[in-house]
């Protein structure tokens, strides 16, 4: 599948505006992915929203590229309502301290989406207004969607309320 003309011009402008910051542009199964430098994600997001009209953030999610360099990946699923395009922007983060700037200042919607990524992968978002876990309780110390986390969970990792009173 070829790029739509609007998406092509958007990517060209992005390339022009941020030379050297765009690491990769590719298509897979008809979707377009742009991998950018993690340090510039907020600038690129703002440019995408304000100049290229990607006003709607549909989703943010993480993936675990286990056993690759730059283990973690955060994907931003953007929609341009004017041009009827969908674009995926990716950043790669290292394994030791996965950290990236939050894009909540650009799209408010990123708030919960980034909390979910933090909860599931332990990726931290700098300048996030409400940096808490979203599904798991705060006192949980594992990140369940990382590949090394066992499918059955870790027994005893979470305290469950007692439902049967202890007899004397």
């Amino acid at each position, binding site marked *: 599948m070829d790029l739509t003309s609007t998406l092509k011009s958007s990517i060209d402008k992005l390339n022009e505006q941020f030379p050297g910051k765009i690491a990769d542009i590719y298509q897979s*199964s008809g979707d377009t992915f742009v991998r950018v430098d993690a340090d510039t994600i907020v600038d690129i997001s703002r440019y995408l929203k304000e100049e290229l009209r990607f006003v709607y953030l*549909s*989703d943010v*999610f993480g993936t675990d590229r286990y056993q690759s360099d730059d283990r973690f990946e955060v994907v931003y699923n953007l929609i341009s309502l004017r041009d009827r395009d969908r674009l995926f922007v990716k950043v790669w983060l290292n394994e030791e301290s996965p950290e990236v700037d939050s894009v909540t200042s650009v*799209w*408010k919607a990123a708030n919960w*989406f980034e909390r979910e990524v933090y909860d599931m992968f332990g990726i931290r978002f700098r300048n996030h207004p409400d940096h808490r876990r979203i*599904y798991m309780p705060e006192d949980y110390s594992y990140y369940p969607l990382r590949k090394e986390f066992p499918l059955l969970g870790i027994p005893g990792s979470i305290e469950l309320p007692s439902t049967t009173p202890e007899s004397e």
Partner: protein
Amino acid sequence: MKLKDIQSKAHPTFFKEHQKKLYQSLEDKHTTIEQVDVDDPLNTGMILNMGPQHPATHGVLRLMLELRGESIVKTKLDIGYLHRGVEKIAENKTYQEFMPYTDRMDYLSPYSNNVALCTAVEKIADVEVPERAHYIRMIGSELARISSHLLWLGTLVMDAGAVSFFIWTFREREKIYDIMDNLTGHRFTVSHARIGGVANDITPEAMGLIKEFIETFPQELKDYHKLLDRNRIFYDRNENVGVLTTEDALDIGATGPVLRASGYAFDIRKFTPYARYTEVEFEVPTRLEGDNLARYYVRMEEMHESIRIIRQCLDKLPGGPVRTDNAKQAYPSKDEVYYSMEGMIHDFMMTDTGICPPEGAEAYHAVEAPKGELGYFIQSDGTGHPWRLKINAPSFANLQVLENILDGEMIADTVVIIGGVDPVMGEADK
């Protein structure tokens, strides 16, 4: 017996700390010295915890509301009480095996979820779907939309105070359950779609029931309109409640009817059409007000449009197979499995290994579920199991909206606003 010094007489056997505190508070009653807050001399400030076990929260949603008298100052939502980790489970299942889990995501419209997963897998693995299957999927998805909206309508009106209405919408839902029973073999968790088509063709009984339903249902809808549209109580409880402007809706990421009620006609069926939605005519109901009443009108209109789509699908329903014939991509039919060796082997291979998309492929495919954009992102490592499967759940996005629109509303409107946003926790919590 003197009631002084209860503590020494009570010997709690469980939750000792809790009981102790309770007795202590009983002792202290009427003797408590209340501190007066200078900013709030009437002491109207209060933190109210609502849920997770509350009938109006439609499941296990928990809200922390900071109140000043009867108005809500701030809200925080606490979700995750139904978190089952389906994305983790998906990584350990073949694509077809994961199907029953999708039924339990948005359990009010399982058919749409099945279609969403299948279309995503078909996109990444490049599977051709027969025409007839596309139309059956559309019929099923639109029935699921009506079913989901009927439950929303019943509970919304119940939240607004009219309990009997719930029974009437459920009578219609029951008919859809019967259709699903005949069409798919299950009433509730249908799992009817298959990768490469659907499980079975429409039976004559199911066809009869669908035809009967689309004939009788518009009259029911008319009756609902007659009862609610000019109903003073319902109108006043919903008008100007939970207002969301178009800009905010796009910024906070509202989706589905919530976004459309705020004035933006965004519908995946028009945005990136899937199945055969390009072949049928339908409108995208949109309202400008952005309040709860607008959400009501949008969903009611959507039910009209769904009936319209089903009618066109039945007219256009082509003949032919309902599942692709390529044994490397889809399950062979049961006839083949029972009467031919190859069929048996293929059936075994599909169950054991399943369909294997190319290594390193990535795909995102979204459908318009009753709650909004339901998307599946799949990353493949070339095996029969997804390397990563991400579900973009519309209820999750809409709950974030809820956290923002509750601020400044009245406490009594909370349940109506939750009803208007229509979250399903099974989907939001994954």
